[in-house]
């Protein structure tokens, strides 16, 4: 029932009547020319900066798979020869600016395959590497099981003697991974091994998890830095993972020019998936690792925008009738 005093009359407000003040841009050449020009120039500027920065980054990559084009470590290709150690020699003609990062690279390795690591339901995330003869595997799951286990030692050849370059294994994993995400089980009687009592090592591992780094007892269990790095799933099938940083002693400012030997403990098989292994020395800048692409992309897009502004100028001159100059 309608009451007295109320009518059905709609409210005469700007909102109800769809008369809200509005900005009604009409895209036309005249307006966008300065925009294109500005964006183009800015992009070119950024592009140049990126390109120059990227050029300054040094990268040294050596494939040591031992098959195909790579000659290094070919002696270790035969899986029967285990353990196998091989050497990779290289020389630097100039100082390799520090801090230097040592990566290992795997290619054709699909760490991102569903079911392998990422995107599995937690309840079954470890299957089929959850139990080994009814004993819980720690750490469980196929990612952990297939952990990369080649090790590298770097020597500088000074006067024909091998001088070990100290490799810093601390802080190579994400801070959050180390401090928040992964936790060791509480130690029993001050022993980490006792804490892992009742579990077995993953099938492919030579050593149990509490014994991963014999040199540093703190770097064991789930908080082993190499383990943490491996557990962070790579996005693409060709990926690097940080192995060590060279930050200590005389090498803190970089690797001086000279000859070096990298001794590789060749354990990890890649032949069964036609993968390749490599080792990479790289330094970084504010924009991270070496990447030419972004700089070039900015340069190209910037130039394109400048060209477009020229085209728009022509269009504007040709088609804009004077009465549309508002």
């Amino acid at each position, binding site marked *: 029932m309608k009451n*007295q005093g*109320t*009518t*059905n009359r*709609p409210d*005469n407000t700007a909102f109800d*009547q*769809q008369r*809200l*003040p*509005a*900005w*009604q841009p*009409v*895209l*036309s*050449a005249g307006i*966008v020319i300065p925009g294109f020009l500005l964006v183009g120039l800015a992009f070119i500027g950024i592009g140049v900066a990126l390109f120059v920065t990227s050029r300054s980054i040094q990268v040294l990559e050596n494939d040591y798979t031992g098959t195909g084009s790579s000659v290094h470590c070919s002696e270790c290709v035969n899986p029967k020869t285990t353990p196998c150690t091989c050497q990779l020699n290289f020389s630097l003609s100039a100082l390799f600016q520090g801090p230097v990062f040592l990566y290992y690279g795997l290619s054709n390795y*699909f760490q*991102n*395959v*569903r079911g*392998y*690591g*990422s*995107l599995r*339901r*937690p309840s079954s995330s470890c*299957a*089929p590497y959850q139990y080994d003869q009814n004993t819980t595997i720690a750490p469980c799951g*196929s990612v*952990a099981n297939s952990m990369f286990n080649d090790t590298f030692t770097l020597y500088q050849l000074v006067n024909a003697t091998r001088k070990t370059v100290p490799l810093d294994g601390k802080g190579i994993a*994400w801070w959050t991974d180390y401090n*928040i*995400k992964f936790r060791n089980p509480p130690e029993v009687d001050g022993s980490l091994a006792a804490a892992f009592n009742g579990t077995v090592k993953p099938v492919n591992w030579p050593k149990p998890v509490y014994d991963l780094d014999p040199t540093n007892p703190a770097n064991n269990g789930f908080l082993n830095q190499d383990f943490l790095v491996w557990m*962070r*799933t*790579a*996005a*693409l*099938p*060709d990926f*690097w993972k*940080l192995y060590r940083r060279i930050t200590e002693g005389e090498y803190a400012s970089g690797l001086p020019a000279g000859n070096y030997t990298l001794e590789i403990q060749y354990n990890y098989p890649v032949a*069964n*998936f036609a993968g390749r292994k490599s080792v990479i020395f790289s330094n970084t800048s504010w*924009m*991270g*690792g070496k990447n030419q*692409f*972004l700089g070039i*992309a*900015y340069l190209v*897009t910037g130039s*394109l925008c400048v060209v*477009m502004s020229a085209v728009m100028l022509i*269009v504007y001159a040709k*088609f804009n009738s004077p009465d*549309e100059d*508002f």
Partner: protein
Amino acid sequence: MGSLEVWSLIKQGWRRKPEQEDKVRRLISNLPYEDLRRKYQPNRQYANNSIKTTKYTVWSFIPMNLFEQFHRFANVYFVVIAMLNFVPIVNAFEPGVALIPICVILILTAIKDAWEDFRRYQADKQLNNMPCSIYSRKEKDFVSKCWKDVRVGDFVKVVCNEVIPADILLLHSSDPNGVCHIETANLDGETNLKQRQIVRGFAAPDGSFQPEYFSSIIYCEKPSNNLNRFKGYLDKPDKKKIGFGKENLLLRGCTVRNTDEAAGIVVYAGHETKAMLNNKGPRYKRSKLERKVNTDVLFCVALLFIMCLIGALGYFIWLETFPDIPPFVPPDSNNNYISPALSGFYMFFTMVILLQVLIPISLYVSIELIKVGQIFFITNDIDLYDEETDSRIQCRALNITEDLGQIKYIFSDKTGTLTENKMVFRRCSVMGIEYCHRENALRLGAQCETISDDEDIVFQKPKVPSRLQYRQKKGISSLRRSQSARTHMGARYQSEVFTITNEVAFSSPLETDVAPDRRLLRVTCDEKTQIQEWCRVSHCNGSASFMDFFLALAICNTVVVSTAMLPRQRVSRLQSLLKRMGSLSHIVNSFQSIPEKSSKSRSSLKDVKEEEAEDYSDSGSNNPSRRNSSASHHSEEERGTVSDPNGLCYEAESPDEAALVYAAKAYGFTLLARAPDRVTVRLPQGAVLSFEVLDTLAFDSTRKRMSVVVRHPITREVVIYTKGADSAIMELLDCHGRSNKRKKIASKTQRHLDLYASAGLRTLCIAKKVLSEQAYDDWASIRQEAESTIDNREELLMETAVHLETNLTLLGATGIEDRLQDDVPATIAALREAGIQVWVLTGDKNETAVNIAYSCRLFNQGDMVFTLNTDSRSILDCTLGEVRRYTAPSQSWSFQSIVGAVMPTESTGPTFGLVIEGRTLSMVFEAHLQMKLLELARHCRSVLCCRVTPLQKSAVVKLVRNKLKVMTLSIGDGANDVNMIQTADIGIGISGQEGMQAVMASDFAITHFKHLKKLLLVHGHWCYSRLAKMVIYFFYKNVMYVNLLFWYQFYCGFSGTAMIDYWLMIFFNLFFTSTPPIMFGIMDRDISAETLLGLPELYKTGQNSEFYKRATFWIVMLDAFYQSLVCFFIPYWTYQGSDIDIFTFGTPMNTVSLFTILLHLAIEIKSWTAIHWGFMVGSVLLYFIVALIFSAICINCNPPSNPYWIMENQMADPVFYLVCIITTVVALLPRYIIRVLQGTLALSPLVQARKLDRLSTEARDQQIKNWKSQRSPSEVPTNLVSPVDSFSNSFEQSFYNSSLEREIRISFPSCSLSFRLQFLFCTNIQYRSESTSFMKLFALCISSLKYCSFLDFTSY
């Protein structure tokens, strides 16, 4: 409700199977069983009166609502996908998470449903608890109870102005005549009163009603939804059967008026009442756009299938490439490896889950939400609000708003749609003499101008005999005052006196005041002197015909009389007064002897009147709803106007009748009262005549006439007064007349009728017949027999009516004008400019329709109008062929003018109009010449179909709709338009004078035809462009986002991995990018309303579906592919060959696609209001806030590499921003450049119009004018006087003058076909010049008609 009904049916069938099989309902009074338990109640199996329109109960809501929702295809798809998640072998995401979107959608819909249901529940509760009076045996009186307590078999009493709680068989009425008046406005919207009678034999002489003694058994038909069908009989204890019908039934929902109280027995209650059975929910229509969307969704399904297939094959091939099983290919949980082929097969389903978003399921929810918003804005448009009736536009169909923007054909009714359906008496012809009522015409002209300055309407009235003038003035003044009050109410004081506006339908002074024609008045005055003679002579001869004419006008109708001040109180006192005054002969005697006596009788009449008024004000103070009216009554008195008998209000079922009664009143023949068996008329001299009504032969469309049979109070003759369509009456005239005079009169009258019709007036013929006593008795017995039959009563009644209406004597004819509504010509012109073809389908006769068509500019003065009026098949065929050949040379441009966009057309040659009569139309349908007709019609600017039946109307609409595959709109106001309203894509009802049937059947209900302009040109355009763009955008959005995942499959071995965390993925569609498109669909305004109205041709973009074509879909798909490639590969190349982890890689992509998707929308948004900014900025902010919070708290949610702290790390990295910027720019550059080029080159009128919008108002108006003159130089603003006006103003001078209209008639001797080229020459020079070109064309036409042998230029 459906299942409920089923349930109750089952219950009933279970218990009372035998009863169910009966075709009748048997019921008895409940009173003897009053105290017994329900088990022993006799009528327990019938539904009680509590109603429940809710779908759910609190308990059944969740299961039933879910069940209902899963009926929809889209939801089923969603559920299947969700189930697929739980199949272990294909598990993709967290199954629980995958359920979130479907749950959100289900919950949203459920909340909407629950809210609607709750409102229904509240309404039900309110209704169920309304008070009513039920008779109780214990109390021996009616006791107050609630509606829900009413049961079948109860006795219920309703008092005046109360709403009837159930369908009640009327057994008692306070009215001495045993009638009860009800207003059915709640049921069908008709505000006139309807009369109901108590069942025969139940009229208690002392006026008391004792239900205890009711011992009959009632047999009536099963509940049905037919409001006009009800019959049954009472089985009395003495084995007597009394029949009853719909005139004895009080319907639930109606209001009792003019009757102090009425009572009866409930026959149907609750859901079985006719009102409830007629109450259907809103209709569901699928719009054209939605149909298109569905096909495109199928394309998406195909796309999804292809992509999944690629994924499955890719996985298979990828697995095959490995020489050995690599460590990263996981075995299943039992450490077994599945064969690559089988894995590939499973991968197909994994892909389906991963890429499911490609099917835009949320699109349907979004569309629904958008339509709700659009309807909100349409109903809130103040321009579509009607002040007078205080009503907005009603959107009854909720899901076809965008169809309003694509209409190509409009089918309009004429009466009440183009015209006001307010009938004004204009002319009449009595005994072959025309009275043109020039004063009346002048007055109408004056009134039109000053109608708003209510009180000071002044018009010059010629001198008329003093007494009459005096009375006339008085009558007019009192009436005008009531009118002025109404105008005030409408405009300003509506709130104060709203009761009157809502309950009382006054007629405007235009209709009620008729200034009598001087000549005719003189004749009637002269006639008065003959009255004595007339009274003495038993047989009335020709000299009394004038009296008879006006008596017929006053009597021969079904008008209900009420006073102006208390309009719903019927003047029944008058009758008791008459009875008190003594016999009729007494009146006649007093009248015959001395005039003073008659004045005395008048004064006594007046006394009674005043007494009556006091009565009413007393009752008014008791009754709150009457208080206002009585207050206004008092105010009237203060102003010094005493309500005299002239202050009568007539309420007629058709406005024509009222107009005639008012006309009769103007000449002094005032209808004072009408009862079922008696009508009372006051003659000009003041004498009151009371006619005994012997029978009323109601109007029906087959007979096209109505009659009353009365006994003349003086001559005691049985007289039949008939009025009806001229065709119907002329055939029935007494042809074997004694004199030539009658024939002469008939032919003269016929000519007048033709003239009236050509002036656009509605014509009626009035005739009478005197019946001998014997003949009447014979007929009456047959009639009685017919009435008492139960089967095919209608046919029998009609037969008897036809039998009686023969050998009539023509009295005269009337011409009633149906005035055009405001702005109809402008609206039609604008619609036509918008590329819409307007067809008018009317039941009126040819000439009337054609003239209305001219006056509303459906046909222009320069148009060539073809009239097809034949019923011979071959002729029609050849005519169509000829006409086509004739129009062939101009085909090219006329075709362009219909479909062409903006090219200057219409510069050459005249345009064509087509008039088709109903019988020709039926011939077309029978002979399968539809396509020819359509082809012809397409060459014509407008098509006018006259004398068409409702069925033909819908057939025409169906023909155009199906054969031309265009969007059609029907607009009408009456029951006869319901068919066509339901047939068209959009049905629009005009809530006007003719009740609500049209509105009930319509999708949109408006109050004036002119509202159509804004509804279509502005709201239609907006709704269509908004929705079309939104839908396109939605497809784009989903494809673009899903493709990112698809490209990633090439880098994860087609294993169905997503590089974006699934929570963020789900939120992306659910929250981050869902609201801007919805807001866009509701609020974006590409062109302002003013420009759209100023440039109707902009509407053509919608007609041609330019915003959403098949190509548009594929272009946007290409764009989506391009953008997704950019959004994937720029980050890919940036991060390639680094130690990036999967979610760090996915986050920039997610962010980039958010920016791209939103900025893509920003390019499409044409007007940025604060709300737009709010939604866009809000979405971006929401994304960052949610992503940051999510990555901060989600420590363990997607192991082993989870999104913890990813967003934070990314936002600290400059490369992230650099990637975001360049990717967005590169992705949107092509679209942006194309839009800029479109804006610069301004090829489309839309862009030009948008540029106009940026101007100031004056500059814009100027530009619009320039634009129009540029675009269509030939479209000269023809602000000519409408032909009807000019015609009727100069009617008398040019009556026989051929200068105004010349008709060229071509006759075909071979086929007796004449098609007319009608051409109105006006004094305008322009048309002179055109007339020569017309003659040329005409010559061309002649040459093409080879067998044309006879040319005849006729003129009046």
